[in-house]
């Protein structure tokens, strides 16, 4: 938006100078109207009691934020979101690292494996969600059947229909969908590392795992942290998987901040309080991102 007005103010006869800015007008308009303005508008709404049901629309200051701090549903969703973010990011990073190290080796059929790894990434999340619904179905799910046949469980488990297992099932689905992508990111990072370094370490008598731990891992640190950060930010806003698989249930045991905000907005039509929830989420994410960024910069500074 801002860029647009600057460009328009330039005098006509000097328009060749304005060309670079004119070319940026469309993206500025697009991001301004669909991202920047709504974020600010959401911040404004979060200070109002706007509701499409009661038709109220007044400024109430920080009242909503006060309500939020005492809202059990919010803290419940907040806990689930943190658990989901932490566990799924950790699993995806560790398993992804393993997959990347494997794919780094030369072997026949490597490109086939790499292609297969793009399948979970390309699949719509809604389809993943439904697919896991079928795999983990409490009555006829193939996962129960496999576990029963292997003697690992005695009775069918009602995976996403029970309070104890629902969040775990969602984490498994997310790990399935996202780990291969993580692996490909880390693989790209591995490939930028000079192979002669590991070779030299080997010559000096280092074992394979030592070469990994003391040579490759430190050099991969920045890729690992950045990939982890992006993954964590993405996991923090998990919506599709939860909404389609459990809808936040059973008994709110899988409610996350995104699904709670969505329901507050579109089921109870409280746009004021719903915006407070989503703005609180935005602020939390910004803090995580900045904190992580500072950590990354420090780590990299120390490495050098």
């Amino acid at each position, binding site marked *: 938006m801002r860029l647009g007005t600057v460009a328009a103010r330039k005098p006509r006869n000097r328009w060749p100078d304005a*060309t670079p*800015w004119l*070319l*940026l007008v*469309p*993206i500025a308009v*697009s*991001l301004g*109207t*669909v*991202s920047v303005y*709504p974020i600010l508008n959401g911040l404004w*709404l979060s200070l109002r009691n706007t509701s499409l049901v009661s038709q109220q629309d007044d400024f109430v200051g920080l009242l909503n934020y006060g309500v939020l701090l005492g809202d059990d549903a919010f803290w419940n969703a907040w806990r689930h979101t943190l658990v989901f973010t932490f566990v799924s990011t950790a699993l995806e990073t560790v398993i992804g690292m393993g*997959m990347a190290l*494997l*794919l780094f*080796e030369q*072997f026949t*059929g490597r*490109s086939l*494996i790499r*292609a297969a790894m*793009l*399948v*979970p*990434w390309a699949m*719509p*999340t*809604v*389809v993943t*969600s*439904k*697919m896991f*619904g*079928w*795999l983990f*179905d409490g009555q*006829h799910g*193939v996962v129960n*059947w496999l576990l029963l046949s292997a003697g690992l469980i005695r009775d069918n488990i009602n995976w996403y229909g029970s309070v104890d297992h629902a969040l775990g099932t969602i984490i498994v689905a997310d790990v*399935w969908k996202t780990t*291969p992508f993580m692996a490909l*990111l880390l693989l*790209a990072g591995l490939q930028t590392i000079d192979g002669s370094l590991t070779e030299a370490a080997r010559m000096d008598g280092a074992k394979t795992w030592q070469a990994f731990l003391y040579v490759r891992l430190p050099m991969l640190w920045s*890729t690992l942290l950045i*990939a982890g950060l*992006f993954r964590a930010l993405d996991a923090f*806003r998990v919506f*599709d998987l939860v*909404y*389609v698989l459990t809808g936040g249930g059973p008994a709110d045991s899988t409610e996350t901040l995104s699904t709670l905000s*969505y329901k507050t*907005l*579109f089921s109870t039509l409280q*746009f004021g309080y719903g915006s407070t929830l*989503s*703005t609180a*989420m*935005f602020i939390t*994410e910004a803090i995580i991102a900045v904190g992580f960024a500072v950590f990354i910069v420090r780590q990299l500074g120390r490495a050098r």
Partner: protein
Amino acid sequence: MIGRRRTASRQALIFAGATAILVWSAAPFIWQLSTSFQDDKALTAATPSFWPSPGTLDHYYNVFAAKHFQLYVLNSIIVAGLTTLFCLAIGAMAAFSLSRLRIKQRFGILITILSVSMFPQIALVGPLYLIAANLGLLDTFTSLVITYVALGLPLVTWVLFGYFETFPRELDEAARMDGIGTIGLLVRIIVPLSAPALVTVGLLAFIAAWNEFMFALAFTSNIEHQTIPVGIANFTNLYYVPWGDIAAASVVVTLPLILLVLFFQRHIIEGLTQGAVKG
């Protein structure tokens, strides 16, 4: 001798690991494929059968004839197609301006564009819904396309910027010597040279729009404008979950994506990893 034995066990380990990754990545979808051809009796049997016999096309028939799935598919093609075109056009202009023309604040602008893409979408959906409602844009392709273009632009611009940066500056000089203007440089030189990057990033934008769920759920309420993810999410019957129908629909929407991705896999991996590795 010791060295050779070590490589043999290493080979076995690599083989086992590779098989595990293959099964992990492909098995769930293959099971979905098999499910889509099995009748409901086989699906609810005590022992699941992995090969559909007798096979049936009932689920595919239900999906298209009874649930009008082709309408969702058409809607998704329109929305994702338009999104891709606009993303490429706007993204190419922005990347060209930032990469080839002398803009002093280019890195500041790039970082701004990237940080805008970090905004959580749940924080945008409420205000955008109210705006769309006020403008009478609910239940239109327009609202979806406008939203998806903005969501896709940061990645498109970033990847194209990286690609444009690889062209030598002499190219611009030569074009100017030939009397080609700024816009001509973009349209007649840079864009044709960037075909591989445009295809990759266009595919990424297309897949993102094709798969998007939350905005489509919020903005559309009838089958005339709903996209595939919303259609599949609503696939429930009153008394039971039609797993076979869901599997058939899943195969229909996922198979084209998988074929596209397999065809372009090398480009996609390069495009996707560019940001994280260079950063």
